[in-house]
């Protein structure tokens, strides 16, 4: 068989390939040749073949069949073989394969070889890719070499020890004795690697750290070495642009940082040298700045005196003015870390930082933006916001979302006036509207609601913005919500803050209808628009137009819109008497914690248009009318309100609430959605158990819980029967049966219930609202009670009905629940 081609030859050949396919062909051919050569166990050319294999591996081709060959090379006596063999091992083998363990013995032998370069190869390989098992086996050898006087081997052994400690931290102790004299070396290589080893030990173990501080007096030693480096004259071997061994200087500074952190004595001992380095280092080249940078990091991390800290921040300030981009970037990053602790000092450089917003470099712009937001406070908010808004206008899209969120946060914390706040929000919505995060919309709505005196101004500005541009969805959503709420203020021209515009009702409705039909509007936006139109029916006089729009959308393809339209339609037709109350002005919302189980509190049937749940329930300051009488149930103690079919405020379920408040709904005209409230899937899980308005289970009381008589007065009797026929044991399902022993029917019968705060309640639709006379039939209704804390069940009920021509209302408390119903 002819001799395998040389490595250089192969590389040359492969480079002549003009296509990927051609290259692949060449490689495959050569691989085949190499494979057969391996099979022949040819010692002479093995090295050459493995080298070629490594080249092909770098091009991305598989080379695993060479792994064992690497091992054979390592075991060879020839240095050339070992060199390539170890290189191959580092490139092709990894600890996931058991093959690598076969190396252990070879490495062990080579660690004891008579030639230092062979020992070096072994140390290097072990220190690069040794697995935990290998490290455990060979740690002793490494430790031995750590004590040798041969500096070439000593430095390698030190780094090898670092690797061993990283892989097997428990072995750290065994290297401790060998570290005793490491720092008295003159050789920089050994010094450097020793500092690395000591750093690794101190970082990993607080005990080691304490030991080195107290017993070994590491800090004075390091200070001495650093001083020598700075003060000594030119040393050709280690000089870099006039600085002596910057790599070693930086490493020492880093170790000093760890030693000085949270330790007064150590920090004190290094104060002088840090000041010296900070003032004496040449800053004209990158090298000097690298050392200064490390010094600043150390000063900020240890317990340095304030003079030193100011010095550090000033260095960073100078960095900010440097022409070199890298240095500016590094300065911004460091200032970001220190802005919390040394806020005032960083504030002094605010104008430079703000200038960096205009830098061309993307990395610098991002850092400058983050830092600018960190520097905003009550004093500089107006100026800073101007700069940041200007930045928002002109920055790349990747920044806009973060910037917008930052602006909102800052404005919320430090707004000098409500008008300024609204103006700022308007500016963000109009310039970066499409990048604003979805959760900003409900937050903004809440903010606007709470700025009562600004309502007219806000709605006017938003209206004008809509006239210009309807493509930015968050802006459009907020605007339609406001117009729906405050449209009356808009047309009456009540604005005080600026010149009121003349707008007619029809113009407003034109705009809202425009949103409904526009291709730019998302389904969510359309929902907002439709609800806004509906709300205006109580604020505007052109009700007929609104009625027409609403009924058109009753046949919309979009299920969401269709449902809303149908329900609003129903409001017009059958429940007109409730409409004004339902569509009343929203009260001031309290902000609650954003995450956390909220109690299910009713918004009085008022449709909350936002699809994203605003997690704040309106407090109990609603005007009295029929719908709010429920609150009287609470009677001022800590019972939570539960309205029939209450769910977390989602539009579809809000519609469901309406349906249930109003009892059975017979829909006339237009295709009706299914009578059962459509259940959105994001309801609390216990509602997902196949919810519908029909009872879920047969009336046979399978659970064997005895029924109770909950109420019996004036001829009206209400029984409670219990079920536990669902997978969730915390839910009690109660069916009420209302019967009437008098001779006249009880009509318009409504059953309402309230439970203590630790429970949650859901009332499904009743079977009817007429309790027939003389026990001819019963009205049934299902209640589901969630009782996760297994507390004793109590309930307050309220009954309203018309009997013999007069309205009857009664309140009662039910305390006789059988224990099995809630345990």
């Amino acid at each position, binding site marked *: 068989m002819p001799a395998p081609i040389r490595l250089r030859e192969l590389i040359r050949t492969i480079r002549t390939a003009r296509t990927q396919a051609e290259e692949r062909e060449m490689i495959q051919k050569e691989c085949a040749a190499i494979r057969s050569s391996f099979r022949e166990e040819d010692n002479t050319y093995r090295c050459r073949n493995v080298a070629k294999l490594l080249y092909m591996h770098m091009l991305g081709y598989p080379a695993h069949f060479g792994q064992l060959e690497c091992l054979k090379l390592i075991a060879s006596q020839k*240095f050339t073989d070992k060199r390539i063999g170890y290189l191959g091992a580092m490139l092709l083998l990894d600890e996931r394969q058991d093959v690598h363990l076969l190396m252990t013995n070879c490495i062990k032998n080579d660690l004891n070889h*008579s030639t230092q370069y062979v020992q070096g190869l072994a140390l290097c390989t072990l*220190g*690069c890719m040794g697995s935990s098992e290998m490290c455990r086996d060979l740690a002793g050898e490494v430790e031995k070499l750590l004590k040798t006087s041969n500096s070439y081997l000593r430095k390698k052994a030190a780094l090898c020890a670092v690797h061993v400690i990283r892989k097997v931290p428990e072995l750290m102790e065994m290297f401790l004795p060998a570290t005793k004299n490491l720092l008295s070396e003159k050789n920089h*290589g050994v010094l450097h690697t020793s500092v690395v080893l000591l750093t690794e030990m101190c970082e990993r173990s607080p005990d080691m750290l304490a030991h080195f501080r107290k017993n070994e007096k590491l800090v004075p030693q390091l200070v001495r070495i650093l001083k020598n480096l700075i003060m000594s004259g030119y040393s050709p*071997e280690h000089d870099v642009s006039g600085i002596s061994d910057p790599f070693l200087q930086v490493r020492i500074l880093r170790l000093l940082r760890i030693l000085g952190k949270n330790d007064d004595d150590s920090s004190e001992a290094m104060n002088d040298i840090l000041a010296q380095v900070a003032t004496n280092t040449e800053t004209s080249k990158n090298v000097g700045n690298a050392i200064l940078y490390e010094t600043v990091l150390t000063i900020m991390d240890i317990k340095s005196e304030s003079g030193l800290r100011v010095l550090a921040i000033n260095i960073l300030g100078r960095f900010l003015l440097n022409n070199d981009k890298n240095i500016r970037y590094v300065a911004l990053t460091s200032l970001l870390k220190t802005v919390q602790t040394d806020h005032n000092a960083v504030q002094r450089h605010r104008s430079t930082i703000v200038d960096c917003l205009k830098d061309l470099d993307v990395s610098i712009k991002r850092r400058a933006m983050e830092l600018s937001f960190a520097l905003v406070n009550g004093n500089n908010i107006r100026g800073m916001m101007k700069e940041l808004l200007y930045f928002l206008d002109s920055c790349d899209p990747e920044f806009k979302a973060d910037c917008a969120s930052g602006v909102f946060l800052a404005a919320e914390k430090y707004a000098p006036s409500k008008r300024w706040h609204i103006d700022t929000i308007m500016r963000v919505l109009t310039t970066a509207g499409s990048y604003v995060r979805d959760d900003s919309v409900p937050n903004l709505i809440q903010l606007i609601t709470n700025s009562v005196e600004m309502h007219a101004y806000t709605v006017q500005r938003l209206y004008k913005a809509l006239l210009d541009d309807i493509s930015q969805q968050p802006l459009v959503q907020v605007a339609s919500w406001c117009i729906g709420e405050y449209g009356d203020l808009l047309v009456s021209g009540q604005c005080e803050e600026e010149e009121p515009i003349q707008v007619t009702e029809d113009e407003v409705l034109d705009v809202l209808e425009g949103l409904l039909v526009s291709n730019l509007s998302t389904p969510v936006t359309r929902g907002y628009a439709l609800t806004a139109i509906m709300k205006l029916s109580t604020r505007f006089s052109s009700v007929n137009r609104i009625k027409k729009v609403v009924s058109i959308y009753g046949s919309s393809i979009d299920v969401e819109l269709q449902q809303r339209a149908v329900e609003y339609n129903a409001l017009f037709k059958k429940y007109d008497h409730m409409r004004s109350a339902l569509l009343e002005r929203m009260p001031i919302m309290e902000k609650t914690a954003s995450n956390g189980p909220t109690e299910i509190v009713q918004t009085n049937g008022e449709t909350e248009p936002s699809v994203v749940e605003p997690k704040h329930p309106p407090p109990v300051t609603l005007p009295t009318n029929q719908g709010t009488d429920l609150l009287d149930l609470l009677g001022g103690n800590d019972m939570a309100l539960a309205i029939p079919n209450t769910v977390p405020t989602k539009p579809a379920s809000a519609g469901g609430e309406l349906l249930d408040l109003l009892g059975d709904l017979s829909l006339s005209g237009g295709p009706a959605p299914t009578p059962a409230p459509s259940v959105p899937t994001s309801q609390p899980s216990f509602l997902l158990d196949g919810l519908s308005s029909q009872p879920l289970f047969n009336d046979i009381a399978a659970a064997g819980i005895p029924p109770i008589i909950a109420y019996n007065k004036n001829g009206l009797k209400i029984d409670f029967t219990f079920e536990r026929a669902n997978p969730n044991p915390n839910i009690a399902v109660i069916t009420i049966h209302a019967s009437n022993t008098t001779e006249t029917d009880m009509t318009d019968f409504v059953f309402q219930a309230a439970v203590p705060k630790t429970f949650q309640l859901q009332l499904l639709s009743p079977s009817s609202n007429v309790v027939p006379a003389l026990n001819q039939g019963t009205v049934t209704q299902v209640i589901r009670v969630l009782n996760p804390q297994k507390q004793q069940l109590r309930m307050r009920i309220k009954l309203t009905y018309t009997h013999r021509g007069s309205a009857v209302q009664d309140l009662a408390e039910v305390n006789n629940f059988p224990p099995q119903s809630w345990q």
Partner: protein
Amino acid sequence: MRFLLLFSRQGKLRLQKWFTAMTDREKKKIIREMTTIVLARQPRSCNFLQWKDLKIIYKRYASLYFCLAVENQENELLALEVIHRYVELLDKYFGNVCELDIIFNFEKAYFILDEFLMGGEIQETSKQIVNRAIESSDMLQEDDHSEWYEVELFGP
């Protein structure tokens, strides 16, 4: 340091050194991402960028990009010096090094790197000592046909 990559302006890999254990698939993915990100950078941008939880320092020398990934607490400005030092070592060894030298002598490039760095840390800060070590090792290779002989380069 986590890894060091050298690649050409067309994205062809010329050298890869990994300082932590990783699967082949992960390595390939990282190489692809690095080449894409670095080659897309504007010509006069700063040499640092943030990638996942690592800092990437890259510098172009002639037709080769040197790309070094370090952990968050490491000094980026010094990393630039590390890259520069490696280029100087290559330059001294090959004499006016160019990309072709590294292509045709990739194993030598690795040997030099392994005398300069180990396990993600700097091993030797003196240029002369690294160069002498490489020269001596090369001489050992030439003597393979006879027997070993000790090469005493420098004392304790």
